[in-house]
């Protein structure tokens, strides 16, 4: 593949690295690399660089990360993000408020009925 110049050869580096080149291009590039010291050095640098990138350690999330996410979601949504839990899982404030309203209404009616000047409708 002496019909490939340096620029054309370097254009093929990525595909060659990914093993994504067709057999003809692979053969042409390999032949060029055998005969051209400049491109051989270039490809050696390319291989080394990508080897180093691929060799970066896989970082893991710090301890407490998951708990931090849950806390952030709760905070951001003021606790309303997740589905409301059933009445038995928490203090039933709705039930309390209904009972209290009923009680107040009952007291009011009783007081009204027990007043001396109350007019009874026949």
């Amino acid at each position, binding site marked *: 593949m002496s019909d490939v110049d340096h620029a054309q050869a370097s254009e093929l580096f990525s*595909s060659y690295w990914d093993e994504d080149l067709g057999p003809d291009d692979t053969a042409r590039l390999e032949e060029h690399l055998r005969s051209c010291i400049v491109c051989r050095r270039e490809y050696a640098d390319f291989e080394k660089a990508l080897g180093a990138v691929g060799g*970066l350690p896989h970082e893991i*999330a710090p301890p407490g*990360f998951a708990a931090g996410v849950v806390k952030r979601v709760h905070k951001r949504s003021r606790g309303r993000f997740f589905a409301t839990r059933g009445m038995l899982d928490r203090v039933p404030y709705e039930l309390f408020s209904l009972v209290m309203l009923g009680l107040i209404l009952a007291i009011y009616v009783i007081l009204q009925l027990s007043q001396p000047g109350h007019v009874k409708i026949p």
Partner: protein
Amino acid sequence: MGASPDPLGMTMIRERLLIRRLQQREERAFQEVVRLYQHKVWNLVFRMIGSREEAEDIAQEVFVTVFKSIDGFRGDSKLSTWLYRIAANHCKNRMKYLGRRSYKTTGELDEAAERELQGAQPSALTPHLDGPEKVLEGLQMEKLVQEAIALLDEDHRVLVVLRDVEDLSYQEITAITGLAEGTVKSRLHRARMALKDYLAKRGG
């Protein structure tokens, strides 16, 4: 000839069930997603940004976005693809923001050295068995590579991280970025050549 690892598509079924539970705002499903994907998201974000402090904030925001937007997830891609897309977009936005503020990451070698001393997983760049000099060499190389990645603009950086750090296929990368495969390949080639030039100049 090995059998297919998931002949009944159990992974996909499990994922669909998980998504349904998420859409029903089930807190346990939320915790499961964070547990399953936290390290993938963390690694992507950290390699894109290069700072642990920023990475923690962004990675948490990724999950907040996931759960805010889960109703709009139609399931036409894998959950991990969708997560990567959200993470990549958050990183790109943060990079633009930090770029406007001329933010520079510092001290990552010190952190890496500390991690090494604390007995974290050795990597190809930080071999444990060859003595302290080799370890230091590996850590310096890690810093150099991280610096080289940080010099790329956000469109090129995301491709390097997805392909060469996360080892994703081109098909997955096109699904994440929304770019045509040819565009991904040509941009990635330019990014790789820039990395090669930077590392070769600095003896990496």
